[in-house]
């Protein structure tokens, strides 16, 4: 009976340790990601209201956002238990690069295209932020 109880405690502790296998986060990481989201929204919002919708005008902003995404990929490559979060960032990066390449190829995007890119980028940022916040 004692052996069974001991075994149950071990199994329970093991289960708890599995459940606790999530990456660590902090407010700085969450703020950094939220700033990346704001920068993306700002890029498209500025382009929507501006008469200048050329890719070249917004190139540096695209690169800044890419840098945020790349740094989060590096962070998630190095921190423990973050395989799925790494996948989130990689998927987002693939799509963001496609949107940037499309803007570069077309040279100018119209308002509907910019609005769509804005909505789709938010569609990536929001669940990524939710994931990071759920680690706390």
């Amino acid at each position, binding site marked *: 009976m004692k052996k069974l109880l001991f075994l149950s405690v071990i199994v329970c502790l093991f289960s708890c340790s599995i459940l606790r296998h*999530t990456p660590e986060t902090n407010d700085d990481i969450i703020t950094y990601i939220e700033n990346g989201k704001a920068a993306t929204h700002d890029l498209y919002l500025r382009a929507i209201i501006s008469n200048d919708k050329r890719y070249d005008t917004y190139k540096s902003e695209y690169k800044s956002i890419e840098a945020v995404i790349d740094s989060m990929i590096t962070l998630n490559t190095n921190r423990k238990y973050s395989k*799925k*979060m790494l*996948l*989130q960032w990689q*998927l*987002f990066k*693939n*799509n963001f690069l*496609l949107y940037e390449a*499309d803007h570069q190829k077309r040279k100018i995007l*119209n*308002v*509907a*295209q910019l*609005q*769509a890119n804005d*909505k*789709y980028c*938010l*569609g*990536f940022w*929001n*669940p*990524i932020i*939710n*994931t990071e916040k*759920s*680690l706390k």
Partner: protein
Amino acid sequence: MNIKAILSVIEQVFINLFNSEKQKVSEAALEYIESAKERAKVLLEGAATGELDTDFIKQKILSEKDILLIEGIAIAQMGERDIEQTLSNVASIIIGAIAATQKP
């Protein structure tokens, strides 16, 4: 291109998620439903006015698959692993639907 059919599948999944007992999952699901609706609205309006061409819309529908997977991971992180599996299944359905729209 059957955008409405694909988006209705997405919406149905999130309506199911909305019924989840876990409040934070429900809140996230509601956020994702609204987000999917807004994206759908932009695509449908842009397609109707001719401002969005077929290549652009196809690119965005392919993005839906990745957004679903990312949302699935977010929800799984909140502790709903069954929902993650459901989303993966739906992502497969959407990939199939996209493939069907691209056949000559």
